[in-house]
């Protein structure tokens, strides 16, 4: 049943966000620490289980695939509700800070990605 997939997804997200909130409280920050990441991990682990007790049927899968496919349209909607004006009109300093942070982070990616190549050569 499709609803099983949607419910499984909801379960993962609620558990993840709940754990993330508690983590945030424990560390003492006013933010959710990795809630969505924990939810994703949970879903990956559940979907990689191929137990005879826990099998995800194809209709159940459809319930999850639907939301996965809705991801890009949702991102488009998210883009359309950004406060772009504030980003552009707040003066040069904010823009320079944002642009510089992105440029430096982009430049860092090839350096860190190389660590993977090193590991691969060893094995």
């Amino acid at each position: 049943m499709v609803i099983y997939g949607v419910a499984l997804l909801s379960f993962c997200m609620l558990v993840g966000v709940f754990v993330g909130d508690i983590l945030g409280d424990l560390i003492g920050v006013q933010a959710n620490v990795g809630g969505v990441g924990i939810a994703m991990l949970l879903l990956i682990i559940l979907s990689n289980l191929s137990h005879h007790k826990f099998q995800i049927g194809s209709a159940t899968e459809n319930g999850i695939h639907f939301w996965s496919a809705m991801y890009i349209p949702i991102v488009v909607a998210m883009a359309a509700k950004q406060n772009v004006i504030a980003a552009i009109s707040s003066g040069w300093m904010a823009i320079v800070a944002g642009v510089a942070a992105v440029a430096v982070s982009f430049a860092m990616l090839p350096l860190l990605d190389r660590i993977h190549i090193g590991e691969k050569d060893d094995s």
Partner: protein
Amino acid sequence: MILDSLVDVLTKNALITAFAFVGILVWFSYELSARLTRGHIHGSAIAIALGLVLAYVGGSITEGKQGLADFSLLAGVGVMGGAMFRDFAIVATAFGAELEALKRAGFVGAASVLIGVVLSFVVGAVVAVSFGYTDPVAISTIGAGAATYIVGPVTGTALGADSGVIALSVAAGLTKSVLVMIGTPFVAPRIGLNSPHAALIYGGLMGTTSGVAGGLAATDPKLVPYGAMTATFYTGVGCLLAPSVLFLAVRAIV
């Protein structure tokens, strides 16, 4: 009268209106992609860019903070593009992701979050100093804003920064997220963003969930779960480090 009842229907069914609206927007973008760029610029990249342009237009007409969603007709866009649906869809993309790729990049992925937060903070702080800020609280808040637009205000509030500085930090974070959304598909080939491993690191370095989500969607949807996974830890780590260790470091140096 017909127009009135049409507006009434669209407003009452805001979320459904948003589905239809975004559907048309995405269709239009894919047509543009196929006809004008012969598929060179991905349709989803165009759709996201158009979304941002519309957000600008919406913001300048309504003078609100929610882009298009400030038009009452399109309020549903705000719900559809809000954090709840965004996170739900991001979690869904994890279905079918390889556990192996995650395990292999475990250490580098975690390191990239730490490096990403510190790097963006330092860059933001240096920019703040070069624009004449000398107060460690202001410098830290702007540095935190260069991490994400959530870390900025959280840090600023914790340190007692004034609201103008907090607004600047939000703007720095917004600039970052918009730029990551637009820039990623163009930079991706040059920085080797083409594998789950690279996407995990990229998510950790950039950290802005919305930027990473949009940027990867426009680059290669298969990479989304990997980047989104590490990105979701970024804001938490940022909120942890910026008002504490990083602020103390700034105060010691300034």
